[in-house]
């Protein structure tokens, strides 16, 4: 993983010093709340329903065991003993006191972490594939590029007061595990016709109230041109993004208003001016320096698919179920990628207690070379586990309730914090996830249903990514009660699509039953080995509408 050098340390330390002073000025009244708010936000701190929420960056989802121990310490010392992993690979604490925030930031800096720009109208955490550097289908590791982009974006003097937030994601594999097409800028590492690796560049993706799938504005960009091209995009956005209406201020609105071709033209026109600027050149030495941090670990030379493991799977059906659901192929023979499910039935998705954090950190040291990853689906990943260690690891994870064999299955639910925590929410999301989890806790049933993602958002801001769930659930308030709108057919992968509204919103209590009806209809209609999303795309929405609402015209009305 990347390690801070003296410049990184200095930059973070200076930023903490500045924020400490800003906090003091706020506490003394030198700064009004209106003046302080953007400063607070640029350090990742929101005022929420119960207290201040602090969002800590986990750059492109990479975490060391040492860092996880510190996150546990912070949860205990400064918060209420747990943290929440988000859909942007960050962690959130919900009760950080303003006058203790500088101390928390210092504790983070001590392990090379920070909260800079995890909020605010600036470039946010650069996210990536949680299997980066390890997946068998990977073309190139996106992480060095994420780190390069991260540094370019932090405290960028020109782009710290954008019209709105700006999110960038990078994927290095043909299978998109980072929701690249749903970002303001999305980057795919790709080979051109000559086999040279560069970037496909997409702009204008995003969810929220106005969801869009991103448009490719450049099929292939040379690596040397990455920073200058990004700078051109940001400049066109900074100048032309709307500032009159926060709901219309994202780049997706600008791109769709101009049309992708015109937007591309403006970017290319600006880029022509700065393409060869030494200010934006990336010296080869720096690329090498950063890349070296992400070099392959010293893997042992091990045989792949050892017979012993096959034997264990055969003799232990529970281990086998976990193996099939949560273990992923690794580039290095004899190794595996392990998903830790933070979705045990009935718990709040994505939460980890301080004790669990410490224990997971110890397991990472024991089983995964001291490193782990955070997935945008609010789970954790151990990227380097020896296949011969899998069963022992599984047994340890079971003790921590992190071994539910449901990755990518119906109960691997994404849920935003919702009205239980968030000032923006219309409804709660966590109890809905818990209800569904309890309703579908039978593992054999889950296995039979197969790949099916449910994403829940408590309001139209869509932090739960409901637009791109195979089943999406959006909380809406109706006559003071919690109602939920369902969508079907969303996808955040390379085949990205936005879900279609199923029909009238339904009360909370009816949600598990509706899911049941949808699942039943799917099983009745599916072809052999056809996953839910593909069945939906083949048969359309009508059979599912009918399953949930029956044939009554009033109930089928597609109005909230």
């Amino acid at each position, binding site marked *: 993983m990347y390690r801070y050098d003296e410049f990184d340390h200095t930059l973070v330390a200076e930023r903490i010093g500045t924020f400490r002073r800003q906090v003091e000025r706020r506490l003394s009244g030198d700064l009004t*709340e209106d003046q302080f708010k953007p400063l607070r936000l640029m350090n990742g701190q929101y005022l929420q329903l119960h*207290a201040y929420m602090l969002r800590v960056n986990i750059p492109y989802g990479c975490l060391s065991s040492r860092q996880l121990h510190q996150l546990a310490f912070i949860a205990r010392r400064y918060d209420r003993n747990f943290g929440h992993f988000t859909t942007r690979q960050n962690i959130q604490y919900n009760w950080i006191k*303003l006058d203790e925030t500088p101390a928390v930031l210092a504790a983070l800096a001590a392990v090379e972490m920070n909260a800079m720009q995890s909020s605010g109208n600036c470039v946010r955490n650069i996210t990536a594939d949680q299997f980066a550097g390890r997946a068998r289908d990977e073309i190139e590791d996106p992480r060095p590029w994420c780190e390069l982009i991260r540094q370019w974006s932090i405290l960028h003097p020109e782009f710290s007061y954008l019209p709105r937030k700006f999110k960038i994601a990078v994927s290095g594999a043909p299978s998109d595990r980072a929701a690249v097409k749903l970002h303001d800028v999305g980057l795919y590492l790709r080979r051109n016709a000559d086999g040279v690796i560069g970037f496909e560049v997409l702009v204008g993706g995003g969810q929220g109230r106005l969801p869009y799938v991103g448009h490719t504005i450049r099929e292939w960009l040379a690596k040397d041109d990455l920073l200058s091209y990004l700078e051109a995009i940001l400049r066109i956005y900074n100048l032309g993004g709307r500032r009159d209406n926060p709901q219309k201020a994202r780049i997706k609105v600008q791109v769709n208003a101009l049309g992708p071709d015109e937007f591309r033209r403006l970017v290319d026109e600006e880029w022509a001016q700065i393409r060869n600027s030494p200010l934006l050149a990336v010296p080869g030495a720096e690329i090498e320096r950063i890349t070296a941090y992400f070099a392959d670990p010293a893997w042992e030379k091990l045989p792949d698919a050892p017979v012993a493991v096959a034997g264990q799977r055969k003799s232990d059906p529970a281990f086998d179920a976990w193996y099939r659901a949560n273990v992923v192929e690794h580039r290095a023979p004899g190794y595996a990628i392990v998903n830790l499910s933070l979705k045990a039935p009935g718990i709040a998705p994505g939460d980890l207690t301080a004790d669990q954090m410490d224990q997971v950190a110890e397991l990472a040291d024991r089983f995964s070379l001291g490193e782990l990853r955070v997935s945008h689906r609010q789970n954790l990943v151990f990227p380097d586990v020896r296949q011969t260690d899998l069963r022992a690891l599984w047994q340890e994870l079971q003790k921590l309730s992190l071994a539910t064999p449901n990755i990518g299955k119906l109960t691997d639910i994404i849920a935003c914090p919702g009205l239980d*925590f968030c000032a923006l929410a219309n409804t*709660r999301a966590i109890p809905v996830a*818990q209800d569904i989890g309890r309703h579908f806790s039978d593992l054999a049933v889950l296995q039979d249903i197969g790949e099916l993602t449910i994403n829940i958002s408590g309001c139209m801001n869509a932090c739960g990514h409901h637009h791109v769930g195979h089943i999406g659930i959006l909380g809406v308030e109706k006559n003071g009660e*919690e109602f939920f709108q369902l969508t079907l057919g969303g996808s955040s992968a390379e085949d990205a699509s936005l879900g279609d509204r199923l029909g009238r919103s339904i009360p909370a209590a009816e949600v598990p039953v509706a899911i049941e009806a949808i699942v039943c209809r799917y099983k009745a209609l599916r072809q052999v080995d056809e996953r839910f999303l593909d069945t939906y795309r083949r048969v359309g929405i009508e059979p599912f509408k009918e399953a949930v609402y029956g044939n009554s015209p009033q109930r089928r009305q597609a109005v909230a």
Partner: protein
Amino acid sequence: MDTKGQMVLANRLTDGHVVFLAADGGWVEDIAGGALASDQDAAQRLLAAAQLAESRNAVVEPYLIGIRNEAGRRQPVSFREAIRAAGPTVRTDLAD
């Protein structure tokens, strides 16, 4: 204890905690300890006091909320404010 009317709710600046304006001008975390206004005039006076406290940086974003009687105790009328007053409905083992 009166259980119907309006109260002022805000976030305390230093720790961000939800607090209610009390009769003595202080701020308390327990809804039972806050001042309850039984009519509009009293409510407006409460709000004015709260806004003064805001200008003095004691609290952030004060506003009036409706309170009703729930089995002899004060309960915010709106679900959102009920959650603000009582804490998250999930993770009650770790929250307030």
